[in-house]
């Protein structure tokens, strides 16, 4: 494992001819391109040689069993987890160079909701990237944050302490923060986890609207039953890409069996062996 420097975005090997063919409908540069991405935790590989090219304007679900590396893939694309091989490009450029165009929505449980801030403080953080290190958010940023809160139906809560929110409201605040970033590509880690039915419906509507405005959204999702109706495209993941394509084509018994069935035990045993030997 190469130390702190994530390999993503070094662009080595270039965007050459061995990348997967694009969906012709998407045209031009893919919103997200992942090539031969391999990621390890403490020398144990969790993702192997992931290849992916997501056309712009699509709503993509990432599904797979626990431990399949769904969150790791998202974090690795964002450069939060160092890759041990491969590269990632966002709209044709390394993530780091195009960071303003990618938004990340972490898992709700990843933060301490007793933190002393209110809803507005959190949503304003969506503007911090553009403001840079020292500039303060002004009227324009506040208006943008308020508009984002409006889109998730949380305008009335802007002064509410985040500790006093329900799980669904917390998730909406995270989405509002992402909307305030005004990105073209979003990666969301389990936005439906532990939210109420009303919030789930609101998020689905919101994701559809974002897609209709030309945004590309990748969503880590754990519920196969709803995956089929929520997403245009599905990425079936289990330590490697089992299948990626339009939902109707990919959502087949055979491919799901390959993703969730026990066929990949050999791969995970190999990973253990590699971890032991290094």
């Amino acid at each position: 494992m190469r130390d702190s420097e994530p390999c993503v975005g070094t662009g080595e090997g270039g965007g050459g001819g061995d990348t997967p063919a694009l969906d012709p409908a998407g045209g031009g540069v893919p919103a997200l391109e992942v090539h031969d991405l391999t990621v390890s935790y403490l020398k144990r590989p969790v993702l192997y040689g992931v290849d992916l090219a997501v056309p712009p304007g699509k709503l993509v679900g990432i599904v797979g069993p626990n431990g399949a590396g769904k969150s790791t893939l998202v974090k690795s694309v964002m450069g939060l987890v160092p890759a041990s091989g491969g590269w990632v490009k966002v709209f044709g450029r390394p993530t780091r160079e195009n960071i303003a165009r990618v938004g990340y929505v972490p898992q709700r449980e990843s933060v301490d909701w007793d933190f002393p801030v209110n809803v507005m403080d959190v949503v304003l953080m969506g503007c911090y990237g553009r403001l840079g290190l020292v500039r303060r958010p002004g009227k324009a940023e506040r208006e943008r944050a308020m508009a984002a809160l409006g889109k998730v139906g949380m305008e009335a809560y802007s002064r509410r302490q985040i500790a006093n929110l329900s799980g669904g409201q917390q998730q909406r605040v995270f989405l509002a923060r992402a909307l305030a970033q005004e990105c073209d590509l979003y990666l969301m880690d389990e936005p439906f986890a532990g939210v109420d039915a009303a919030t789930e419906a609101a998020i689905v509507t919101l994701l559809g609207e974002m897609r209709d405005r030309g945004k590309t959204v990748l969503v880590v999702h754990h519920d196969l039953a709803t995956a089929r109706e929520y997403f245009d495209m599905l990425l079936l993941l289990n330590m490697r890409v089992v299948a990626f394509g339009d939902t109707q084509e990919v959502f087949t018994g055979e491919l799901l069996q390959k993703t969730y069935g026990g066929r990949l035990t050999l791969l995970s045993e190999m990973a253990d062996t590699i971890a032991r030997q290094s």
Partner: protein
Amino acid sequence: MDRSTDPAPGRRRIGSAVAAVAAGVFLASAGEAHAERIGELVQTDPWEQVGRFFDLSDENTRGLRVAFAGALFFGAACGLLGSFIVVRRMALVGDAISHAVLPGVALGFLWGTDKDPVAILVGATAVGLLGALVVDWIQRTTRIKQDAALGIVLASFFAVGLCMIRMIQNGEGAANISGLKTYLFGDIGSLDRADVATMAVVVVATVSLVALLYRPLLAISFDRGFAASIGLPVRVLDGLFQHFLAFAIVVSLQAVGVVLVSALLITPAAAAYLLCDRMHKMLWVAVLIGMLSALLGVFFSFLGNNLPTGPFMVLGASAVFLLAYLFAPRHGRFTKWLRRRARRRKVRDENAMKAIYRILEREGRPEGGVGIAALAAERGMPEAAVLGELHGLGRRRHVELGDGEVSLTAEGLRRARKVVRNHRLWELYLTNEADYAPDHVHDDAEKIEHFLTELEVAELERQLDFPQTDPHGQPIPGLKSV
């Protein structure tokens, strides 16, 4: 993301900090009498001492003024940085750095022939950061988690420091010894102008850092992954923060001592955390509490002549924390208890008035007296208990007690109608809109009737299209009657 699993929230550290205070008091009082205390005064009359403390023009208390300024400076720095430590659940990190710097302090003494605050600051900060790096390295290369890694580094660095101090004491240049010892338990009397000047520089730098980089620091404290995802230089910010943390710890060491300095970081900030709901307010309050605690330490140390400063500063901070724990406007235990008690009384009062109203309603009388016995039967309580409640209600002019009977005042009648109205509207709402069976809604309404706000009731009524009767066919009192 590895930070999110950090154990030991700041508040839990308080207990051990208090234990450390007790130990510190014992150790310091068991030591030899110190010759050079603040102002080098020996006064027996405490009131005279208090007078001298506040008489800053007294030439003899120049040492006190130096201590005073120093306490304000490091109290502020500790409060400011401690706030971030508490909300980031890094309390153990502060403790570890404060112990790990000891070898650096010894090195600083060896380096300069005289006690040179800058040499000590550089040496101690360097070693403290080395300790932080070792912790990081252990975490990354093994499966050992942060708490254990901190424990290992804290103890081993501290042990090295103790050995080095002993070696310096055994060696030449023993003139430095007494100065070196103050770093273990802290003695604000040993501060000189150069020390305070160093503190001033550190405080100004710390305040500037936080003022300039407040938002990025807030973002990495709240959500590290997100902060990194928007391109904030998370590692650089973390490094900067740890540098300033080490500076603040090192300049406080001489006054507070290695063992207790982390309490001064954590306790004022933890008290501020209980008092404030917004980070920027918490920073201010923590700074004030930090300065207050440090001053209390100086004051009591001066008052008692031979008492050590560090433990009193920590005790001061702990006292403020205790006050915040009990009386914080929203999170205080006592304030919460008061609120709960007021709520219980409201429920009891309203139930009593409602019972009177229902008896009147059943008997078809708009107002008038109700027998105590009938009321007791209605509420299923002994008469004595009912009477006790009614006396309270009488004092608040909600009922009038007559001979063996009770009647509602105008205000009491209004309150009773309001509760009944809430109750029946809620029952109707549950039955009509939420598909509850009519025999399932009473218990729920019994609870919520006391807490519905006027806005909520108006909305209920609108949604139900201004109904006249509840699911059991009883009339719902109108808005005008309440």
